[in-house]
């Protein structure tokens, strides 16, 4: 066992003072001008820590909306005969009540709900809420910078996200309903305003919102990359970066390279909608009338969309992976196993994610020989993914594990990533995908591997860094209830979907009870819906715990409650804008010296003994 807990003796203040880097912070810092005013502190803040909280709280807002939508469409699927009249006060005209008083959900609105759920969760919650929050919070703190390279652009990044959200929110209240053609917004439903009720104003607002969102991602990403490359503190070489930072860094690069492609696709869609071009539509009849548009190709849109779409799923999962790596190592009191292998896996996954997009299009009439190419690269992604899983498990092995909420969610992440990754391997084979495509098997796959797993990474991050954000701890007991309920509940929701999918139950259908082939799944659908309601309730519990603990949680009394090595735990508990009151700490070692030489942990600011080898360089 490596875990002998002799606390290492070091005088943090003295180390930072003597070894740290003096950037004359105080000379420029007349008084505390950044806190002087409510608006610049809480609203138009340029402090990355505040911007992180803004991203997080906006993300939580959207998560509640998106999840509530899923409960409504799950009720429809689980209990198609029940009356939805009680939802009339919220949904208004989308619920029609017949003479017997039975309320039914309008089918168009069912599609709108599914579409909004996907869009909101993928972009607003798991992209902005996850990587926006933690890249902002941790990049400057963990690389040892006073803020981002451009605090101003960083602030703009949040406000573009906010605007994107505002536009999307407005679209929910349109009389024709929000966009309803699926989160992937395939033409013709997206390109023809007259194609469905949501394709008109709803789609216009959807696309405006997402363009604003792309701007937000790009402004954020440019800042993250620049900060990591340019503002690392003295001694912080790339090989000493915590895996969180590697993950955020690569995520930002993926975003910078793939989101512009989405922007191109959207731009062409806008031309088709507004200018009458025919990039994506051809020979369409509406109401018996042929449209003028000739020569477009809807498949072209799918190529452009999935060129972003596949990297996007890694934009969602990589930050979660980074957070999990850090949390696992800290709470297992062991160095992360295979640090360099972890970094190379992140890089390999990122590279491969650009050459697999057509696995979403095996059924779009893509040439089978071309499909083969994509099958092979898709399956190769399993290799770096497996390396990461192996390293996480090995990190846990023989560790002195603290089973707190953060750690539980990190372990849960590993479980979910394995379960969902395995089904990816089925889908990656084009021959099997012919059967599985567009069924609940796909829904199960991506909810487990991306949806739930990324949420787990985010929860691990929130429970772990909550004291850093708010100076208090979240309630542990509630945290553990949240974990066990969500863990069991999430499998209860998505496991049965695999069987539905294998039997061919298609996704995006309004009801199944009147299909002979699928009606016997009525009980499964009920079960899934009930599990979803329970899991939803548990998330509300989390939200209550989150907001309640800001003021009332256990106070943080020491700077470094987890005994972690990274730099964020050397800042004052209530750090101001600029993070460190005096010098910026210098770094002397990698981030994972846990249980080394009989010490429980050795922070990165502690100089190496003579002859000591740096961990990152094995």
């Amino acid at each position, binding site marked *: 066992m490596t875990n002998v807990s002799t606390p290492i003796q070091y005088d943090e203040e003295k180390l930072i003072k003597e070894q740290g880097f003096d950037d004359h912070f105080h000379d420029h810092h007349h008084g505390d001008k950044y806190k002087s005013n409510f608006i610049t502190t809480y609203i138009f803040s340029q402090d990355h820590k505040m911007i992180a909280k803004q991203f997080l709280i906006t993300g939580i807002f959207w998560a509640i909306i998106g999840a509530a939508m899923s409960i409504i469409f799950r009720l429809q699927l689980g209990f198609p005969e029940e009356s939805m009249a009680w939802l009339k006060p919220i949904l208004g005209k989308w619920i029609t009540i017949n003479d017997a008083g039975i309320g039914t959900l309008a089918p168009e609105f069912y599609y709108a709900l599914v579409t909004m759920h996907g869009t909101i969760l993928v972009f607003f919650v798991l992209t902005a809420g996850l990587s926006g929050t933690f890249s902002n919070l941790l990049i400057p703190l963990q690389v040892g910078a006073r803020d981002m390279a451009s605090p101003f652009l960083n602030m703009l990044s949040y406000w573009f996200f906010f605007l994107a959200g505002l536009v999307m929110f407005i679209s929910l209240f349109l009389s024709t309903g929000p966009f309803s053609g699926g989160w992937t917004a395939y033409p013709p439903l997206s390109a023809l305003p007259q194609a469905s009720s949501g394709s008109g104003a709803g789609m216009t607002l959807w696309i405006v919102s997402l363009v604003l969102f792309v701007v937000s991602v790009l402004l954020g990403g440019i800042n993250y990359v620049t900060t990591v490359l*340019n503002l690392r503190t003295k001694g912080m070489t790339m090989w000493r970066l915590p895996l969180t930072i590697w993950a955020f860094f690569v995520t930002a690069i993926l975003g910078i390279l793939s*989101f*512009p492609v989405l922007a191109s696709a959207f*731009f062409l869609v806008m031309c088709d909608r507004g200018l009458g071009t025919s990039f994506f539509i051809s020979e369409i009849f509406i109401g018996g009338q042929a449209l003028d548009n000739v020569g477009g190709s809807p498949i072209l849109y799918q190529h452009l969309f999935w060129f972003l779409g596949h990297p996007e799923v890694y934009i969602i999962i990589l930050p979660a992976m980074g957070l999990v790596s850090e949390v696992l190592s800290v709470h297992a009191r062991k160095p992360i196993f295979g640090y360099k292998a972890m970094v190379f896996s992140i890089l390999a996954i990122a590279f491969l994610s650009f050459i697999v997009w057509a696995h979403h299009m095996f059924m779009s009439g893509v040439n089978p020989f071309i499909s083969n190419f994509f099958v092979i690269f898709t399956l190769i992604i399993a290799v770096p993914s497996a390396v990461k899983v192996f390293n996480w498990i090995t990190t846990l092995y023989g560790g002195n594990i603290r089973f707190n909420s953060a750690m539980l969610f990190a372990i849960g992440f590993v479980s979910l990533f394995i379960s969902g990754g395995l089904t990816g391997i089925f889908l990656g084979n084009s021959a099997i995908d012919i059967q599985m495509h567009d069924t609940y098997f796909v829904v199960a796959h991506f909810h487990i591997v991306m949806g739930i797993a990324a949420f787990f990474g985010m929860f691990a991050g929130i429970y772990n860094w909550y004291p850093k954000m708010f100076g208090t701890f979240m309630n542990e007991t509630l945290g553990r209830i949240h974990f066990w309920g969500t863990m069991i509940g999430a499998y209860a929701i998505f496991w049965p979907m695999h069987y539905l999918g294998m039997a061919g139950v298609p996704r995006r259908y309004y009801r199944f009870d009147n299909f002979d082939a699928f009606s016997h799944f009525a009980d499964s659908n009920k079960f899934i819906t009930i599990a979803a309601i329970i899991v939803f309730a548990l998330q509300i519990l989390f939200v209550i715990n989150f907001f309640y603990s800001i003021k009332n949680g256990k106070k943080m009394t020491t700077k470094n409650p987890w005994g972690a090595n990274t730099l964020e735990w050397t800042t004052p508990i209530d750090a101001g804008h600029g993070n460190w009151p005096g010098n910026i700490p210098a770094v002397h070692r990698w981030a994972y010296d846990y249980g080394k030489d009989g010490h429980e942990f050795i922070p990165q600011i502690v100089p190496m003994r003579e002859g000591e080898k740096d961990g990152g360089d094995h």
Partner: protein
Amino acid sequence: MNATLTESHYRNKIHPKKFALWVACASMTMMFAAFTSAYIVRQASGNWLEFNLPDVFSYSTGVILASSIVLHCAYIAFKKRNVFLYKGLLVLALLLGIAFVVLQYQGWLAMEKMGVQLTGNPSGSFVYVISGLHAAHVLGGISAIIVALVHAFALKFKVTKVRILRFELTLTYWHFVDLLWIYLFLFFIYQK
């Protein structure tokens, strides 16, 4: 937060703002790469109208190339403290930039005259849309040059680090939109 950016602390030789601009250029490159890839993919599936780009586009290419060179000379003059040349060349660069956009517009009119409509065969739509979006990027560059001009005429002449950096940012971006157009121009010619 000036304190964040105290000099001497940069790890790399390059200023973070300049680096950020390079990253932004990479992002814009991806956007246009997506357009031209879409063009190729769409072209491969047939029903593609072939036409020759109107000559105006060759002139506009020459103009933007010249503007890049002129702006670069203005930059050199600025660093050599040749105030007269610096201001004069800056004005010239601006005029050339505006001329480019006007010529692009003439190019679109010429296409229209040839019978290649925006809403016709996608081969034409692509040219309109891609060059249109490029022109929007050029307008961004023109605004940057206008800001530089305002500085040149409103502020007292001084060669400071901050001003050199500001000039270099404008210059980098302008070279970028120039190169981008040359790529697009050649692409349209050889991939018609």
